């Protein structure tokens, strides 16, 4: 007997399929995990990728790794490189718009050696997070490390310099020799021909930057030659190599209010120049000189009896009056010079000084105040504008020429002398010399006739027999002459003794001896320096003297 067959339908899906499903699920889970873990991808644009290795070069913030470079490729335009990097997801929030990046590699500059460790480990990218809330994923690499971190407190100011030497980015800014900031940016404005600097002053020193602050270039080495002798001042080594910018308040000046960030200042080439350039409150005057202005330069002082009250601005003044240059005028042949009367030089409070000057100047002019050219330096022939009282001057007032106020002038110095000489010569010319000469001739003829008469008179026998009184008188006279001669000799001797023995002579003599002794002492040194100029620095000695020998 056969058993009936049970037909049972087989299960539709084999449990074996669970395995691929599980695998898929795990795979998807891993992918998700990876995607969730991956964090942000960023792209960095750089000029070249020197030292950067995909998969190895790290991105760090304060030496903590926040990501890795994972791909490097050349941009299509071939003028830069695009680097892709993966940032750890915890650090996504750092990718602000104003963040900065630069490559850390070994650098040597005046501030020291940095990035030395990257010699062995290879370069890495330093990331300086910004403060903006806007996040981005495209960045540009800086060529140089950011000088001032985003978290450094301080204030930024602008400096412009027309003629001071060019300074590098990173050059220090000093207050009384203490470094309080540095140059952050520097670029040359070709349009205005001005060097423009951005300064960063560290907190809390921004309070030192006030309205009356002056900035000047501090030379590393300052040699000063004056009546006290030679003084040489040097700063720190980095200042010596790179120079620096100093800021300060001129003596006797109040600092004024602290300025806002971004205020513009001008940079002068030296402290003395900075002092000269700080008089912003001034008025222009045109002075017309009826003489040559040779020797007058722009920047020459305008003085009142030796006190400086202004500066010469344009020589000759390039002003157009009625469409024609003023220095070739039709009506006058005077040469115009444009000067500034700087109120800050009159008095510390410029407002008060301005009011004082403007209310009094007409009165002074009425009393004879005039401008004239005076020689300042006889060797170079430089002249300056001098204001002084000339009570004899013809009355004058301030007049207008074009838009300028004209200050009355008078001729002086050589030209005044020349004028006087001219007058004298004219008088000489007007003398009737020919007439005088003919009169003289006539007189001479008369004298000749008289002499002839005298001769005949003397030769007459009667005259010759005159008594011997006259010859006795003559003997007396010659005796007096001898006495006079003796007195003169005595006087001569007295004078000689005065010259030789006087205290002045003795003093001079002893001073000369002292100088001679000093020179003697200095002689070996100067001789040594002559032969070996570097003997003071290096350990050098003069050659040994030959020994004088005796015959034995």
């Amino acid at each position, binding site marked *: 007997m056969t058993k009936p067959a049970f037909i049972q339908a087989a299960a539709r899906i084999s449990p074996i399929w669970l395995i691929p499903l599980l695998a898929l699920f795990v795979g998807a889970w891993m992918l998700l995990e990876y995607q969730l873990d991956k964090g942000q991808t960023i792209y960095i644009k750089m000029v070249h990728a020197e030292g950067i290795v995909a998969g190895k070069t790290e991105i760090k913030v304060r030496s903590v790794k926040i990501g890795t470079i994972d791909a490097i490729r050349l941009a299509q335009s071939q003028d830069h490189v695009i680097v892709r990097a993966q940032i750890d997801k915890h650090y996504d929030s750092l990718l602000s718009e104003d963040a900065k990046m630069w490559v850390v590699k070994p650098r040597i*500059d005046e501030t020291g050696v940095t990035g030395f460790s990257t010699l062995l480990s290879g370069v890495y990218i330093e990331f300086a997070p910004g403060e903006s809330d806007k996040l981005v994923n495209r960045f540009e690499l800086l060529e140089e490390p950011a000088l001032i971190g985003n978290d450094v407190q301080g204030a930024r100011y602008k400096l412009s310099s027309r003629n001071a030497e060019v300074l590098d980015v990173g050059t220090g800014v000093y207050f009384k020799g203490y470094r309080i900031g540095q140059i952050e940016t520097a670029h040359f404005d070709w349009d205005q021909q001005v060097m423009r600097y951005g300064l960063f002053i560290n907190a809390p020193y921004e309070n030192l930057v006030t309205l009356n602050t002056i900035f000047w270039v501090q030379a590393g080495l300052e040699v000063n030659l004056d009546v006290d002798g030679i003084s040489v001042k040097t700063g720190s080594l980095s200042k010596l190599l790179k120079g620096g910018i100093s800021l300060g308040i001129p003596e006797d000046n109040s600092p004024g209010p602290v300025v806002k960030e971004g205020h513009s200042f001008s940079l002068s080439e030296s402290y003395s120049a900075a002092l000269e350039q700080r008089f912003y409150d001034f008025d222009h005057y045109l002075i017309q000189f009826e003489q040559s202005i040779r020797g007058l330069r722009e920047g020459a002082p305008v003085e009142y009896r030796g006190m400086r009250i202004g500066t010469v601005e344009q020589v000759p003044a390039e002003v157009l009056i009625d469409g024609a240059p003023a220095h070739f005028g039709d009506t006058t042949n005077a040469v115009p010079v444009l000067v500034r009367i700087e109120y800050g030089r009159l008095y510390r409070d410029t407002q008060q000084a301005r009011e004082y000057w403007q209310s009094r100047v007409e009165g002074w002019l009425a009393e004879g105040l005039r401008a004239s050219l005076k020689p300042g330096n006889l060797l170079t022939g430089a002249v300056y504008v001098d204001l002084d009282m000339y009570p004899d001057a013809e009355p004058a007032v301030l007049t207008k020429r074009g838009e300028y106020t004209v200050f009355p002038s008078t001729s002086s110095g050589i030209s005044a002398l020349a004028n006087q000489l001219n007058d004298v010569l004219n008088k000489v010319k007007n003398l009737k010399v020919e007439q005088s000469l003919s009169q003289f001739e006539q007189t001479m003829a008369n004298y000749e006739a008289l002499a002839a008469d005298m001769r005949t008179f003397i030769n007459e026998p009667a005259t010759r027999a005159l008594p011997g009184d006259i010859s006795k008188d003559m003997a007396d006279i010659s005796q007096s002459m001898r006495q006079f001669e003796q007195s003169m000799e005595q006087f001569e001797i007295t004078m000689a003794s005065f010259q030789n023995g006087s205290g002045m002579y003795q003093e001079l003599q002893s001073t000369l001896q002292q100088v001679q002794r000093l020179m003697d002492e200095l002689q070996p040194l100067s001789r040594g320096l002559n032969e070996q100029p570097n003997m003071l620095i290096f350990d050098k000695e003069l050659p040994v003297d030959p020994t004088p020998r005796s015959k034995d």
Partner: protein
Amino acid sequence: MSRLLSLLAACALLGACSSSSTSLHHYQLQGSEQNTDSSGPTLFSRDHLQSEHLLRLSPIAVRGTLNNRAMVIKRSAHQVYSANYHFWADAPAQLLATMAQSQLMQELDKVMVVKGADVYAEQLQASFFQLDVSIEQFNGGLDNNAEIAGTWRLSKVDAKGKLHVLKISRFYHSQALAEDGYEALAKALSQAWQQALSEMSADINTLIASA
């Protein structure tokens, strides 16, 4: 970096300062009165009652390189050498004048010898004699010797201050060095100057007597 550089600079400076310096030697002339070895120097004085004449010794003129503190030796007929480490204790002109005054005082009886420019005929109301000496050689010679040469001039200045020259004479004296070295040279030069002064004083004595 800057520390390293400043350290180097400091080292260089310290090195320069601490460099050993070869020692300098200073010499002076010695007159005959100090040479008498036994009883010490004979001190000298003369007052106006003892002296009949006044001799003014003008500042001695020493020419050119010789007028340096450095001692000079001849290298050839036309070349002289100034020593680097051997110096006179005072300017040669001063040393020579001091020695001349003391020796002339010793050798000229009845003559008061005064040094320098502090004699004025018109104040004295009397005449005096004046000795001008100029030195052209005062150095180590080529022949292991020390030599001194120059010119002296004796004049009479009358009460009115007028000057009458009595004699002009050149002199040259050489003295062999007793031993090697600069000290011996200083000694030989002293001796040569002594000889020159002796000769001079003999001449001056006769001139003053006859004037």
